[in-house]
């Protein structure tokens, strides 16, 4: 019979191998799913993972990889810090919305003035908005011991309603002929989050995401605060004895993840999306949770995982157009990935051994 044996040390080999195994397993299970939907599984998998990079229209799709990957990486980096410390911010979607609302509010307040300082102010506002929204569960947790998982998630629904209220009310485009949604920031040069290098898809948000990866890497491997974060997650009691202040860790982790999600939202509304509308948020805040785990909560891993997840978004859209694959199938596909990841992750911490059952 099979028996699980706890490894004295987590396996390094499997730490690198499990995400790859999970992706392969998901491709197989996804293939079965697509076959069940009456599509050719090989063609569907090729459309999702190959065509965006090397297909006929790859030149158009490749920049999209950065456009979609940027916010995912930025949000996931913030979340991973908390996840490492055992602090579960799952309300990134809400912080993303509030960041976008604050950023757009600054832009709309200055409209139609053209000035160099508008965009930096928007960045500041977006970061602050996300920070404040992330600090609500943090402060409640520190002050009253309230569960941050539930509070941060409830705030997503509050933020979504706030978004709808703004898109239909205060931020509605006065020249929009009554349609919901704000002015389009793409037509407002001072507020437009343009590409840094033309044709690459690399806007300021993507650049920020890359900076966040470096920041997180240095923080976790070189800085005392990063060490405290890791210690609080892996050995909370040891952390307490060594003088780590748990409240400080909670405030920092939820604050920084809120800030990064807010930035992601602000860069999205001023760039690829362009306007505040009711359906502005597309679930990046939730997908980023998958990205964080797929990247094994490691900054470099998250960078790769974010790009891979962006690929499934783009490939999913192509498959929707070419093969008639429903958009929900891609959502399911991403959910499956997290499942397989958690299942094979066991191999990192445990070893499976065959033992003969003793006669009793």
């Amino acid at each position, binding site marked *: 019979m099979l028996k699980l044996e706890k490894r004295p040390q987590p396996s390094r080999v499997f730490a690198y191998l499990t995400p790859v195994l999970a992706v392969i397993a998901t491709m197989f299970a996804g293939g079965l799913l697509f076959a069940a939907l009456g599509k050719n599984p090989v063609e569907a998998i090729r459309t999702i993972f190959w065509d965006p990079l090397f297909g006929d229209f790859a030149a158009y799709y490749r920049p999209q990889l950065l456009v979609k990957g940027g916010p995912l990486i930025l949000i996931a980096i913030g979340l991973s810090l908390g996840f490492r410390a055992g602090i579960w911010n799952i309300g990134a979607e809400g912080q993303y919305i509030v960041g976008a609302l604050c950023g757009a509010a600054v832009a709309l307040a200055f409209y139609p003035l053209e000035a160099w300082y508008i965009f930096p102010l928007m960045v500041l506002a977006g970061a602050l908005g996300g920070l404040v929204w992330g600090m609500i569960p943090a402060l409640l947790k520190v002050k*009253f011991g309230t*569960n941050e998982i539930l509070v941060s*998630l409830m705030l997503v629904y509050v933020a979504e309603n706030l978004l709808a209220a703004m898109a239909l009310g205060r931020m509605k485009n006065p020249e929009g002929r009554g349609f919901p949604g704000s002015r389009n920031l793409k037509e407002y040069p001072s507020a437009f989050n343009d590409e840094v290098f033309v044709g690459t898809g690399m806007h300021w948000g993507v650049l920020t995401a890359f900076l966040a990866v470096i920041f997180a890497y240095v923080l976790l491997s070189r800085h005392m605060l990063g060490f405290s974060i890791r210690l609080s997650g892996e050995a909370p009691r040891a952390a307490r004895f060594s003088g780590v202040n748990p409240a400080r860790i909670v405030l920092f982790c939820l604050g920084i993840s809120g800030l990064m999600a807010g930035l992601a939202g602000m860069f999205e509304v001023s760039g690829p999306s362009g306007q505040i509308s009711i359906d502005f948020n597309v679930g990046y805040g939730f997908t980023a949770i998958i990205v964080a785990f797929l990247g094994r909560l490691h900054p470099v891993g998250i960078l790769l995982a974010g790009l891979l997840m962006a690929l499934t978004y783009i490939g999913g859209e192509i498959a929707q157009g070419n093969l008639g694959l429903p958009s929900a199938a891609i959502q399911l596909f991403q959910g499956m990935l*997290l499942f397989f990841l958690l*299942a094979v992750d066991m191999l990192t911490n*445990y070893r499976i051994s065959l033992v003969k059952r003793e006669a009793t």
Partner: protein
Amino acid sequence: MDMDSITPALLLASLMVAATPILLAGIGELVVERAGVLNLGVEGMMITGAIFGFAVTIESGSPMLGFAAAAAGGAGLALLFAALTQLALANQVASGLALTLFGLGLSSLLGQDYVGLKPVQPPAFKIPLLSDIPFIGRVFFSHDLMVYFGLGLVAAVWFMLKYTRAGLILRAVGENHHAAHALGYKVVRIRILAILFGGACAGLGGAYISLIRVPQWTEGMTSGAGWIALALVVFASWKPGRVLLGAWLFGGVTVLQLNLQAAGLAIPVEYLSMSPYLITILVLVIMSADKSRAPASLGRIFHASG
């Protein structure tokens, strides 16, 4: 604004209906958590139950079959969670989130052909004589069967946990899984059963939304009810009776804000729609002062070698 359109009897009656989905999901999650497992996938199991129940009701024309399918669907999804957390020893928080993301994807995939259809309504089950009592009859005794089922389930869980041997074992597993293991109880098996029960209850709660409360299918229609059910368990300090109280409170808030929307209060609809979530946060803050009642092994991974 027209306050006369809000009549107390109707308001309280619809409160009972609004409370039923979170009551069902909440009492299921309570059993799971008393066994020491934190399943954050309630939202995913509810929405899966919602579409399973809806699809089967449309295809078969029988709401009862629909509810059975919903329970099976919720339990099926819960089985995945059980396999991940009890056999593969995965992190429960992450697995629960995975379950929710997976359930949302699965339900919108299954539900694409069912948008805009109307399911057969189960008949209201008026309890004879009792339903004729003015006011009280309208509020308590003129509902569909699921409302009574939910109330019965709360009573049954309360009795089971408090007075039966099975309940005692379940609580032992949740309070200290190593001690329970040493006494010879099958910790993993008991937890898997509890997780399946929780999944079935969440499935029923979801189907109640899609079949009776709304009744139609839209993507993501549970809109956080599963998360409110999780908050409900904290609110209830892991006690079945208080789950009922909490469900009525949340149901009351929901109904009241819907009625205020309909009555045309001068506040934009979106701000009223926020209120159930804000109240949930408020209640969580008030209740989380008392941490002592949570099952001691809640959320911990059990591995027999220790």
